[in-house]
């Protein structure tokens, strides 16, 4: 469903993404891991064009996203994105945050949109907070609302950019549980994260990145037991202490 072909990106003279090649199939859960500064976030942000690429192609559902006549807003409406810092809209209530996309982008009626918002908030366990303002919620709760907001786009794929990195440890679990449920329901997910236990449990494939390169692209089992690249081995050794 999402395909990287020889993707390169530079920040001024820094080679941020080096010849990335990879494919994510429908229904797959791909976890992207690696040391800090390896380009994981940059890579995932190129998929919905929050970052541009210098060369190569990225295809989403077969369509090359760098085509001149690609409607950026339509493309993004079809991709759910969950940010590290949630980025909920503080001036809108929880349910307004979730219903915004269906109303403004999909053109649904308010009744339909709020009905869907109710369902999604129920799914992430926050129906009771639907009239609250984001500022009144904990970090974990805000992130779950952010996931519901992404789901409201009814996207075929959701991208997660370090969704639990900004959370206090005791709240990480509640967010990961929601993500596990989504995976079990068959959602296509690409997840940049440091949560290796989550990866071991849920991921179909692991992409290991270091210094802008995609070094490992294997099944989850294979990665944890027989990672071939020495940097991957070092990474695993470092994190499993």
């Amino acid at each position, binding site marked *: 469903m999402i395909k990287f072909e020889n993707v390169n990106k530079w920040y001024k003279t820094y080679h941020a993404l080096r010849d990335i090649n990879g494919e994510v199939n429908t229904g797959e859960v791909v976890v992207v891991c690696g040391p800090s500064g390896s380009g994981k976030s940059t890579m995932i942000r190129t998929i*919905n064009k*929050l970052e541009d690429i210098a060369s190569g192609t990225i295809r989403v559902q077969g369509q090359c996203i760098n085509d001149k006549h690609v409607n950026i*807003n339509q493309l*993004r*409406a079809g*991709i759910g994105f969950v940010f590290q810092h949630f980025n909920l*809209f503080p001036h809108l209530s929880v349910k307004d945050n979730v219903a*915004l996309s269906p109303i403004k*982008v999909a053109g649904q009626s308010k009744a339909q949109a709020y009905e869907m918002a109710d369902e999604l908030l129920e799914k992430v366990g926050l129906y009771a907070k639907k009239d609250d303002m984001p500022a009144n919620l904990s970090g974990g709760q805000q992130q779950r609302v952010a996931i519901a907001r992404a789901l409201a786009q009814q996207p075929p794929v959701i991208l997660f950019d370090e969704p639990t990195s900004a959370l206090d440890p005791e709240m990480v679990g509640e967010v990961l549980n929601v993500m596990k449920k989504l995976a079990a329901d068959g959602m296509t997910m690409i997840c940049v994260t440091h949560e290796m236990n989550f990866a071991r449990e849920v991921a179909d494939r692991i992409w290991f990145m270091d210094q802008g390169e995609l070094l490992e692209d294997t099944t989850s089992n294979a990665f944890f037991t027989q990672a071939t690249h020495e940097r991957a081995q070092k990474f695993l050794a470092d994190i499993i202490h």
Partner: protein
Amino acid sequence: MYDFISTYGMMFLVGSWPGGPIGGFAGTLILAALSLTAAFPIAMLIGTGRTSEIGIIRHLSTVWVYVFRSIPLIMIIFWAYFLLPTMMKTEIPPFWTAVSAIVIYESAFLAEIIRGGLQSLPAGQVEAARAMGLGYFQTLFTIQLPQALSNMIPSLLNQFVSTIKATSIVYIIGVNEAAFSAQQINSIELTGTLRTYLVLAMFYFFICALLSRVAKMLEAHLTAKRLGQAA
């Protein structure tokens, strides 16, 4: 002093109303409020234009801001006094000439306040909105402006104070406001000019100091709210 105030107090406050057009301090406030309100839509265009991704819009907006912040208000008033009757092919009352001049003048400052307000939002807000598929204008109107406007209120209030002070020059083209009233009183009294002008100064002092104080309190309140939210 008491006699002076009781004789001329009303003249300072409302000019020769109800026997004539409204003037004095009321005239000042009406002029300032009207001009600032009319300048707002223009300022919105220029302010958002300053952050536009389209080069030509961004450059034109920047030019507008730099030009109208570098020219004294008096020059703009002279321009308006000269150009408006020629363009509109009819006589323009001094009040409306003054309004036009002040609108153009203030639009540049207001535009910068709006730009500042928009740029002070966390970048993640615009990212999240665009990541959802919201277009430029949708993002601007549903996400950026509602948040930015409430942050801008203290600055807007301060700009209103500046505008009130700026109106004091328009008496030179015959607009009926506070300074004009002071001149009229002077030509009646012929002595005690210090007293006349000090009373004029006091009127400005009280209203501007009051509004500035309110703006400062609002700013403190907003900062506290923002810090409280972040915690």
